[in-house]
């Protein structure tokens, strides 16, 4: 088994309370399913959509948002999968895809030689 990070980008919750709730319930069901199949190493944390960016030798500090709303990383999960192909397959169930968001699937570099 290898580890992968899912980075969730974009995908606003929307303005309808009913839709927000439905979307949340889809996420919960998705996580539950992944967990039951033994793919979740760490469910991760949601991230605030604001913050600061520190850059360069001058250590210049600027305010977020860092990019277009559709590109902001809203959270991450640490996943265990057989290979990249399986990790990608798992990511396809993510409800963020239904609201114009995306999942970035990144293999965690293996350090043991």
């Amino acid at each position, binding site marked *: 088994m290898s580890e992968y990070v899912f980075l969730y980008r974009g995908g606003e*919750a929307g*303005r*309808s*309370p*009913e839709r*927000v*709730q439905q*979307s*949340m*319930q889809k*996420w*919960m069901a998705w*996580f539950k399913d992944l967990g039951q199949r033994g793919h979740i190493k760490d*469910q*991760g*944390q*949601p991230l605030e959509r604001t913050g600061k960016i520190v850059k360069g030798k001058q250590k210049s500090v600027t305010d977020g948002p860092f990019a277009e709303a559709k590109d902001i990383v*809203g*959270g991450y999960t640490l996943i265990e999968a057989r290979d990249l192909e399986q990790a990608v397959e798992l990511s396809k169930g993510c409800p963020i895809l239904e609201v114009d968001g995306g999942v970035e699937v990144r293999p965690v570099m293996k350090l043991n030689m």
Partner: protein
Amino acid sequence: MEPSEHLFRHEAGRMVATLTRIFGTHNLTLAEDVVQDAFCRAFEVWKVRGVPENPSAWLMATAKNRAIDVLRRERTARTFEPELSRLIQSEWTLTPAVEELFATSAIKDDLLRMMFSCCHPRLGEESQVALMLNILCGFTVDEVASAFMSTHAAIEKRISRAKKALASSKKLVEVSSISEFSPRLPVVQRALYLLFNEGYHGASPENAVRVDLCREAMRLTALLLEYPDGAVPATYALAALMHLDAARLPARVDDLGNLNSLFEQDRSKWDLKLVAEGQRLLDLSARGPELSEYHIEAAIAWTHAIADCAENTDWENIVSLYDKLVSIRPSPVVALNRAIAIAQRDGPERGLKAIHEIRDSDRLATYPFYHAALGEFELRSGGREAAQEHFRTALALARNPMERQFLTRRINACERGTSLPGVADAR
């Protein structure tokens, strides 16, 4: 833990109401933004961590913290109530003041305050209902539009006008003051009645939406009954009417998606729990001399509820109840229903006669079930061609696929010459 059904919708109303009391009605949009923000946080956190033990308290606490941020940020840019403005100027008083405004005892009546405030007398009934759905029930403009089978633009205009009227009222209606409460109570009852009816008889083709509207109307009516000043006989009668009508909802549309009239319905599908609760509420409504239109309508619904089939229904009683209803709240639709009851009691010719006697019948010209009733009575008295003509007119006016299907079946029945035991009333 799974969130309860419609949790966000229901919490939205309570939270907007509380924040509007604190920020003032002119800052309604600000209140809505804070609620939206709290939902986004809940969404992000709960989807990973699960729903907390007490989700309502979590949401309200999140809204409170956000409100403190907003007041701190906006204390110079916006106007708040003089008393609040004074308290939020200093960091020493800001947080304790907001804590107090969010205390459980303070937020207890907020939803009711907002409900009464939405029924602003300057607003038309349709606007009151749209505003209630939007603010109290957390329906977006699009959701209200689909419930009313209207366009986004039309509903947006109606709601934004209604919000302006609400903003101009400066403060929410004080429900603990009987002089503010009592005059508005009948307006609130009427709006709840219309909300329920929109779900029950409305033109929307989407079954799920309709049932949602009925459920929201029942939820808000139950809230009104929790208050001694609101729990008057007419409110009990209103609640009884809703329960007895809602009991028939499972039978209105059959497994094939066909709309079934009261006469065709499989009565074993009626919800007996709702009937029993309706009866209990009806008993509670029978205090004092007041006889409201809701009492009469509930009595009609009750008479249907206890009959095992259309033929064994006490039509005599129903006709006399409609006679009373016509005298309290005359309307062409009520008169049409009365004519249908007369046809059941005295035969189709008498029914036709009663329909032709309806005053203002031109107001029914675009109502499909007016023509359908004419068709049904003609069919039953043997006028097959005339009947078909009426059903065709009705079909051209039908508002959704279910109504069209229903009327097409009636047109076909004319060709076969078989009439249903019942009539076209789609109740």
